[in-house]
């Protein structure tokens, strides 16, 4: 896999770091000059992935979240978000819209649906007791001179 640019970071799974993950992604994307829509979509995607790791992966525990961002040829953005939390016993069920294991925290159960909608490819690898890794790809459109 040829990589044009790459950024990796590791941070504690605390909710104040959700905005940090979005800021890191925004900064990484500056050279690619994404459209306003693409940037908004991708900021939402990484926010959902990191929130899932905090709320579900490290539920009742603490740990680290790793992010890897890569710019691949043809303006394909690769995002990997990993945790070493509790893992997902049933991935298919977890990905069902409106399904949530945390209704008391008012989780809408839409995280995966949004990540699927806003990316071209989404892959979930999870092992109970060992953690979860999400990998996603989204191809950016051509650079536009001016967007709304």
């Amino acid at each position, binding site marked *: 896999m040829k990589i044009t640019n790459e950024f990796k970071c590791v941070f504690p799974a605390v909710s104040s770091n959700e*905005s940090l993950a979005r800021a890191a992604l925004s900064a990484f994307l500056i050279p690619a000059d994404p459209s306003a829509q693409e940037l908004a979509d991708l900021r939402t995607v990484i926010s959902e992935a990191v*929130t899932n790791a*905090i709320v579900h992966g490290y539920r009742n525990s603490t740990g680290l979240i790793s992010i890897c961002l890569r710019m691949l040829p043809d303006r394909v953005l690769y995002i990997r978000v990993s945790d070493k939390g509790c893992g997902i016993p049933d991935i298919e069920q977890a990905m069902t819209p409106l399904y949530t294991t945390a209704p008391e925290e008012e*989780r809408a159960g839409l*995280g995966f649906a*949004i990540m699927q909608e806003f990316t071209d490819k989404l892959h979930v690898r999870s092992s109970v007791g060992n953690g979860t890794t999400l990998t996603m790809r989204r191809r950016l459109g051509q650079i536009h001179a001016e967007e709304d």
Partner: protein
Amino acid sequence: MQIHYDASSEQLLVMLSGEIDHHTSIPLRTEIDTEIYAHMPGILILDFGDVTFMDSSGIGLIMGRYKILHPMGGELILQNPSSYLNRMLRMAGMDRLAEIRTITNQEALS
């Protein structure tokens, strides 16, 4: 966030601002609910005009307030979402729970 209750129309207006994610939605929820239970409004208006980011935590926030209002016979209005937010709201089916509307500054003052 600014909250204003108008007793004559029984409307509770919540002007949300900034980024709504899992981290920020927790204190927002507490603050809004305190006002809901204090006034028992007929209409709750959540205004998104100054919201710069929202993920599914914001959808959870809306659904949670709907669940409180609905049994009281209250109505929910989602106001002034950006085009991006509007897409998220409709994707999540929020248009089935609430009226989504855009109002101008002029209308807001009248």
